[in-house]
């Protein structure tokens, strides 16, 4: 007999429907309890008032909060003073849905010139047929004073990275202020979701941010499985965790190499990128893809793990352990590297708590949240993940944390390979009823990936909102670089390694 996970596996999600006037009080209560706002999105449909949805966590409680806009208006109470990262999410809600927060910053965020300011891609009224609007003039905050000048970078960057714009105000080499402008890779993902069958949406979810494809596909499927009461075979959830940890290891290896390189130590890039390539090849041998974008499907996984593939992965893990130990020793003893890493781009504990820093960068600044521990879904409830944290919040802390988490993920992978239960790797999923709502929460390598899903009639998607952890951490990067020198920006930026695509949607 195949063991199955209970349909409501993972932390219980409490659903709250509140009045708009209660939202600020509730947000303050959540913040006072040390909680985090993880996601915020809007819906705006014909014949209905606008509705806001938020996902918040105050371990061990996970909340899905919904409230309508105030009577007869398209306005809702802003909470940027409680959760600073809400500011950009609220601006995005307006750009896409036409629902406006009461907070003061009303500049567009995801909308540049692709559509006019009175059209809303996800709102009731259809978009104009010719959406191109000629004006793209963004009001950056100006810093004035003797010797202050601006450096504008992007959207096309010097390296092989995603596009975005950074506006530095500097004196000499010292950064006084950084202002980010994102939205360049806004592809209309949330609208695209509504054109896909709900049993097919995981493919798009996996491509919200390709470096976190397993996490997104799993989060989407978790939302779908919650709303349909699907009991996923236990083996499938173990396979998903295996894929998620392999994704974490691959990204950490890539970042550790790139961070060495950005500090002038090309040896690190050569060595870690070689190890990453070995891992990707072992992953392809075992599970069919170098990046497992198509592994997680509704009801389980697309392929099972063959014994030969498992042996190859285990061998790869043993080799990784040996080699990473040597390389870590070299990084630790390299005075030039430590000089560049230590103290650069520091986000101290209090600032991190106030901004609501999450995920890897959060844990490097003493913010312990890790959904694998705090809202553990199967099989993480059995895997006993060791939570890794650092306190200094600088580049060195984020490097050290990556080493620690890499070691822990290797342990988890080996444990999974030894203890994975037998059984099927997938079960059929029924189409959810129209109006059903589900939420997925997965700790990706970068941080919590949240998917809010609402079913439409006949197996369609009425609304799907993926929220990347980068929404919470991009604002922290602006603080992290203050007082640092411009040439350290690439290093500091890399140490966060935030997603543009996952953020811009």
């Amino acid at each position, binding site marked *: 007999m195949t063991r199955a996970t209970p349909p409501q596996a993972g932390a219980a999600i409490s659903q709250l429907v509140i009045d708009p006037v209660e939202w600020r009080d509730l947000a303050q209560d959540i913040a006072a309890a040390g909680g985090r706002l993880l996601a915020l999105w809007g819906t705006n449909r014909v014949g209905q008032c606008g509705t806001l949805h938020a996902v918040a966590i105050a371990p061990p409680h996970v909340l899905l909060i919904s409230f309508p806009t105030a009577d007869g208006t398209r306005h809702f109470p802003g909470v940027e003073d409680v959760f600073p990262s809400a500011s950009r999410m609220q601006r995005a809600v307006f750009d896409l849905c036409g629902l406006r927060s009461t907070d003061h910053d009303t500049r567009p965020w995801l909308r540049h010139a692709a559509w006019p300011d009175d059209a809303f891609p996800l709102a009731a009224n259809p978009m104009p047929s010719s959406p191109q609007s000629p004006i793209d003039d963004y009001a950056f905050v100006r810093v004035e004073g003797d010797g202050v000048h601006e450096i504008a970078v992007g*959207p096309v960057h010097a390296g092989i990275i*995603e596009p975005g714009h950074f506006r530095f105000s500097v004196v000499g080499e010292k950064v006084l202020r950084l202002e980010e402008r994102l939205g360049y890779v806004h592809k209309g993902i949330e*609208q695209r979701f509504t054109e896909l069958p709900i049993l097919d949406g995981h493919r798009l979810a996996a491509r919200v941010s390709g470096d976190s494809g397993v996490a997104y596909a799993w989060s989407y499927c978790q939302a779908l499985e919650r709303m349909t009461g699907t009991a996923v075979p236990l083996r499938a959830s173990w396979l998903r965790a295996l894929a998620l940890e392999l994704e974490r290891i691959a990204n950490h290896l*890539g970042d550790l190499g790139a961070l060495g390189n950005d500090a002038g130590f090309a*040896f690190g890039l050569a060595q870690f990128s*070689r190890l990453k390539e070995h891992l990707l090849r072992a992953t392809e041998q075992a599970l069919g893809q170098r990046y497992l974008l198509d592994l997680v499907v509704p009801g389980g996984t697309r392929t099972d793990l063959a014994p030969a593939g498992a042996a190859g992965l285990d061998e790869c893990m043993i080799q990784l352990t040996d080699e990473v130990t040597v390389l870590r020793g070299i990084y630790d003893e390299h005075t030039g590297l430590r000089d560049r890493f230590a103290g650069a781009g520091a986000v101290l504990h209090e600032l991190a708590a106030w901004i609501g820093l999450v995920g890897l960068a959060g844990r490097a600044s003493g913010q312990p949240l890790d959904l694998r521990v705090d809202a553990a879904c199967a099989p993480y409830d059995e895997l006993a993940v060791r939570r890794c944290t650092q306190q200094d919040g600088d580049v060195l802390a984020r490097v050290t944390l990556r080493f620690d988490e890499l070691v822990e993920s290797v342990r988890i992978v080996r444990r999974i390979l030894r203890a994975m239960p037998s059984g099927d790797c997938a079960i059929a999923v029924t189409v959810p009823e129209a109006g059903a709502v589900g939420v997925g929460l997965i700790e990706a390598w970068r941080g919590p990936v949240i998917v809010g899903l609402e079913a439409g009639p006949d197996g369609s998607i009425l609304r799907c909102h993926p929220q990347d952890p980068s929404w919470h951490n991009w604002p922290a990067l602006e603080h992290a670089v203050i007082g640092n020198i411009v040439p350290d920006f690439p290093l500091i930026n890399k140490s966060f390694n935030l997603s543009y695509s996952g953020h811009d949607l």
Partner: protein
Amino acid sequence: MLKTLQQILKTGIVTEAPPAPADELRVRKALESRIREVLGRALCIREVDAGSCNGCELEIHALGNPIYSIESLGIRFVASPRHADLLLVTGPVTRHMEVALRRTYDATPDPKLVVAVGDCGACGGIFGSGYASCGAVSNVIPVDVVVPGCPPSPTRILAGILAAISKPAP
């Protein structure tokens, strides 16, 4: 320092032989031999992410690892289109990147080549085209070679780049 040298010696040379140029990926008629002579085997590439999910970028990054070692073939990535011979473009091209991509193309000196990478660069992929997406790279700038895949492997991307600068097999 000693440990670093020991590790380098222990690792040795891990570079594999490059793939044959993938002639079938060419979408424009064979390049004039004069262009191949000009660009030859010292090729400078400017990578432009015009809207990708960043999956293709991961595999383009891998070209620099010691196993594919693209620099050992005389090919390197440069920081400005003004230094580039070839644009390696991932998509779908978002409407917000359309102007930046056109400007990057215009800033690249002639003769120049364009290789579109990934299913999205080839045809818009799963994102298609819509209010925010122009779809394929060829909807915005002329494309010489298309490397489909989601994401394509480093070997395929390299075979596509080599196809752009090689003489077609007779």
